[in-house]
């Protein structure tokens, strides 16, 4: 299996990145802030006013190092991409499948099944760890029903419908899983989130989604053409498909841990004039560090039977999806929490 390479988050404004032989150098004015061997870096994410030398851009593109730019608030701006990798046959098949209702359903069903199974697994785990809770138990039962329904779903629409219901069952008890009284959750609100918990969830989802984009590009699949999510200009449909398997066990659990361990407090959020709630800059930096640490945690991959760090899961699943498209497996084996 690949090595989990480090992701470099550059948040210090006015920084300048350039290449020095086989290393990446970060400077601020005349001062050298840091220097890393390029071989150890898998992604460079720049937030705000950061500049990068064209030679480093070219090197990143050539070496497959993801280089992307975001606003200071984490809104995606641009990504540097070299020649597409992988083969045209893989992408052609991907497009054909996306257009073929049966094939698309085949893959979408399993992605949603894994998502629902994983939601249910984390609820059951909470029940084991924190004792009886009738509403959690009820939600887990509902999720089991959704899982049975999705097994016989015959279209992507039906699959999406079941997925929506399952998400409602799951989020209906999300507030029960928050310990302490700092924060409340009254349902998922997106674009923009108007409370801290939703802001945290959106933040975590966008981080994992970007990892999925990089992973898909890395194996030669087109992140814009999905099976579960339909095409919309600019929508990273396949990356959104792939994220589904990781939401409950990776992103949501990360958010719950931050809240329940009191690693975030109400002061870490600011409300814009329009009502959107976002993390302060200081908090975002701290959370990025926590997120990087979480990525190092090793798990046993249920299909590959190999120990892999969580951060490599998007790559593992992108690879398994690509191999399925290329005919190595009869079904796409989605990621399941054990």
């Amino acid at each position: 299996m690949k090595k989990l390479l480090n992701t470099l988050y550059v948040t210090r404004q006015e920084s300048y990145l350039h290449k020095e032989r086989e290393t990446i150098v970060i400077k601020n004015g005349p001062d050298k802030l840091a220097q890393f061997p390029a071989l150890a870096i898998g992604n460079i994410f720049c937030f705000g006013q950061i500049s990068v030398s064209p030679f480093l851009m070219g090197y990143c593109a050539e070496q497959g190092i993801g280089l992307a730019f975001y606003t200071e608030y984490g809104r995606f701006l641009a990504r540097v991409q070299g020649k597409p990798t992988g083969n045209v046959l893989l992408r052609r098949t991907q497009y054909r499948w996306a257009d073929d209702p049966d094939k698309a359903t085949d893959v979408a069903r399993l992605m949603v099944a894994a998502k629902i199974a994983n939601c249910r697994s984390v609820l059951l785990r909470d029940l084991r760890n924190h004792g009886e809770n009738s509403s959690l138990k009820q939600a887990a039962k509902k999720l089991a029903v959704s899982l049975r329904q999705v097994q016989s779903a015959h279209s992507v629409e039906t699959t999406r419908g079941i997925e929506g219901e399952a998400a409602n069952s799951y989020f209906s008890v999300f507030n029960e899983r928050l310990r302490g009284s700092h924060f409340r959750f009254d349902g998922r609100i997106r674009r923009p989130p108007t409370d801290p918990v939703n802001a945290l969830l959106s933040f975590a989802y966008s981080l994992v989604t970007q990892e999925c984009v990089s992973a898909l590009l890395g194996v030669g699949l087109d992140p814009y053409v999905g099976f579960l999510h339909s095409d919309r200009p600019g929508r990273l449909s396949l990356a959104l498909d792939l994220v589904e398997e990781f939401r409950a066990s990776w992103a949501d659990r990360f958010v719950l841990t931050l809240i329940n361990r009191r690693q975030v407090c109400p002061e870490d959020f600011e409300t814009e004039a329009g009502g959107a709630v976002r993390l302060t800059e200081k908090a975002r930096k701290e959370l990025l560090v926590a997120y990087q640490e979480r990525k190092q945690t090793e798990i046993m991959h249920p299909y590959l039977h190999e120990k892999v760090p969580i951060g490599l899961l998007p790559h593992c699943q992108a690879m398994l999806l690509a191999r399925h498209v290329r005919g190595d497996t009869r079904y796409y084996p989605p990621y399941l929490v054990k």
Partner: protein
Amino acid sequence: MDDYLAISALQHYAYCPRQFALIHIEQAWSENRLTAEGRLLHERVDAGYAEQRRGVRYERGVLLVSHQLGLTGKADLIEVHSPNEGKQESPRYFPVEYKRGRPKIEDWDRIQLCAQALCIEEMRNTQVTEGAIWYWQVRRRKPVIIDAALRQTTLDVIEAARRMLLSGETPPPIDERRRCKACSLAELCNPKAFARDRSVSYVNAIFQESDDPSEDSQE
């Protein structure tokens, strides 16, 4: 010319059809120590110029093509032996291939050399009866006789490799795991995960999880 096979691809096919498919159909290339060293060695070999010593001209990095077989590639070295004084013969061509490793029992290096011989025969309208493989690890040159059996094996591999290329399909990993150990594509190919398709039972198990009516949380 686009659908001509690279001579080096024949060796990939003979070694492992899946490796061939990953490199030539899926355009995957993962450099490991072996191929990187091989490349450096080749760069050194290819960098040479033709030299002439006692009736033999040594030409390096010679472009080869066979329109009949649809092959294209490069010979590391071709020795062109001038005919003896006063004889009305054409020169004798002797291809030499450089390999990083050690001599192998299997045919795959010889197949590559034989394919080069077939190209030379077509291009120069001559007969190539012999060549050699130079093994870097043992610093030794092993002669190879281009006989009928080797020619047939080579033609079979050309045929099979072309069929696979046209089909666009990637076959499953081979059973001979020893070859996977030295393969530069092992990480991409993942023979352990794809030798047997375990996806059917894996996927069935997702749905069986929920058939547990007790919702029991004892583990």
